[in-house]
């Protein structure tokens, strides 16, 4: 499915700060697409404008030529699924029951047996069949992630949106989850959009990288095209050295003098807070 973002602007209600200042992006090929950018730059906001969790202030998002505002959540759930960042596991159900929620948009259309089969297939696909009857609350963060991805796939989507699926995971799980997403995108020929933080995991597995900065798409292309020292400097304000590893860019982040000013600023803030507290305490005594 083709996703087009046209001149997307976004300002949070009751604030004047414009987060997205005219994003243009076309996604017309299946694959694993990683969205990179520093904190608070509007990566999530941009992606949430695709699945309507946020409403653009102006501009439009089209899926297969249709404006998302004209597509109901109910209809969208049949071709687009969402894997949240994390999930509160209070009163959660078993893994199988959780994954079966992915069939919710199709209730009344497919029979229970088919639904169970699809859920079971995706549980098998993610290699969590041993956990299928266990409670979601008994699982680790990495297993949670797999269950949520299985649930997303059970919706049989054309587009899968994952919000930081590798946060909270150790390096091995980060690799496993990203590789899995890449393979799923290829095998099922679907578009998987992932909000990501780790540069090397992105470099290793992404089919396409979209860098968001200053409210716009700063760079867009293959990992080789986008993950350059210049782009990384512009995006995160850090120095790096890029080499090649297993045919993919490898990013080594450098400690350098320029970081001092930032560290000084933080230390200065701490000192200032201490002084203010001391003054306040003094005032109280008097």
């Amino acid at each position: 499915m083709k996703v087009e973002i046209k001149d997307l602007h976004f300002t949070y209600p009751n604030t004047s700060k414009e987060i997205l200042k005219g994003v243009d992006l076309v996604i017309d090929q299946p694959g694993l697409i990683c969205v990179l950018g520093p904190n608070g730059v509007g990566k999530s906001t941009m992606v949430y404008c695709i699945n309507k969790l946020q409403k653009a202030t102006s501009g439009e998002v089209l899926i297969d030529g249709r404006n998302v505002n004209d597509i109901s959540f109910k209809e969208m759930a049949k071709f687009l699924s969402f894997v949240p960042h994390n999930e509160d596991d209070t009163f959660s159900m078993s893994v199988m029951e959780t994954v079966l929620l992915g069939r919710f948009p199709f209730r009344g259309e497919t029979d229970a047996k088919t639904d169970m089969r699809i859920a079971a297939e995706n549980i098998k696909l993610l290699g969590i069949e041993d956990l299928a009857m266990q409670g979601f609350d008994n699982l680790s963060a990495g297993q949670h992630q797999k269950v949520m991805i299985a649930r997303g796939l059970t919706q049989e989507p054309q587009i899968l949106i994952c919000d930081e699926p590798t946060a909270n995971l150790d390096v091995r799980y980060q690799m496993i989850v990203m590789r899995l997403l890449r393979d799923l995108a290829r095998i099922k020929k679907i578009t998987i959009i992932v909000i990501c933080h780790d540069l090397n995991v992105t470099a290793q597995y992404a089919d396409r990288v979209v860098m968001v900065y200053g409210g716009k798409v700063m760079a867009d292309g293959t990992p080789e095209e986008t993950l350059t020292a210049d782009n990384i400097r512009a995006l995160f304000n850090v120095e790096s050295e890029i080499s090649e590893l297993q045919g993919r860019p490898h990013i080594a982040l450098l400690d350098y003098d320029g970081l001092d000013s930032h560290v000084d600023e933080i230390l200065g803030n701490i000192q200032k807070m201490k002084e203010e507290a001391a003054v306040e305490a003094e005032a109280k005594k008097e």
Partner: protein
Amino acid sequence: MKKLNLSRFKSTSLDTSGADVNSLVSVYQHFRFRKILFVIIVAVILVILSGLNVGMGAYEISFQRVYECIWNWIIGYDDGSVDMSVVTIQRLPRLLGALIVGFGLAAAGGAMQSMLKNPLADPYTTGISSGASFGATIAIAFGASVGLGTYGTVIGAFIFALIPAAVILMLAAMKKCSPAMMILAGISVMYIFNALTQYFMLTMDEQDMATAYQWTVGTLTKVTWENLPLMFIIAGVGAALLFYLAKFLNAMNGGDAFAKTLGIDVQKIRVMVLVVVSIVAAGIVSFTGVIGFIGMVAPHICRMFVGSDNRILIPSAMALGAALTVFSDMVSKIFITAEVPIGIVTSLIGGPLFLFLVLRESKEVW
């Protein structure tokens, strides 16, 4: 953009061979059946307890005879025996009252807990019960009961039960209100109403005070054939609606954002659940007074056996809630000196039971 090079790496093998998938499906079906079996077992226990309950009393009737009389009553045949009149006139309304109170409060409590994601949520901790008992007290204090009979008290209870419900509804409409805040708000409303109830009781004469007291502790003795149909309709329709909403509550367990992407109007479902729960709780409490712990304990116990799939949880909590209430009623009948109001018994049984369950629970629930 460059064309994607898909052959750069060997892919992970992702086979979904049929045999494994089929066995997973059948394991799940078996897993589900075990949960349904739990509901059936509790229902059978409920039937046994009901028979024993009706048989108990100064005039004892055998278990078999109880069900004979009930069957006769259902088919509309009166054999003219003393058993028959004791069962149908004296004891059956009270049993049916216990059943309705039990399943209604448990369904309300179960849905409330799932929605607020808090095991402490029930009609009592959300202030609805306290509001009702305050309404009843005020009706008695100002003599509304004189003009309208029992219904004056019932109407008073119902109106004031809706106040805490409205408070929670308003909080739910606020975007930043967390489930924990709703419970805390409910508890503070509960304190306010309890204090007001106590104050009004001080101003009453002895007889009114005794009537009002019954409302604050909960009793089944006020249930009659006249008010049973209304109680049943409120609790029955309410429970059926909550059962219908169960699948939405399941999806909302995955978080509001996720539920929204499934096409669920989260806010609407939340308001619907709250309205139904409030009406069920208010409807029951208005007739019987505050019967504590059933709404909290029954769903909590069921969660241990059947998990948190609300489609199973709500019916099983209904069966268990009814069984617990019928059992508590039997205990209250044992005290010969004076019949102890059931509200006291449910709290005396429910309190330690809940404490035991909470301490036994290895992982943190809240």
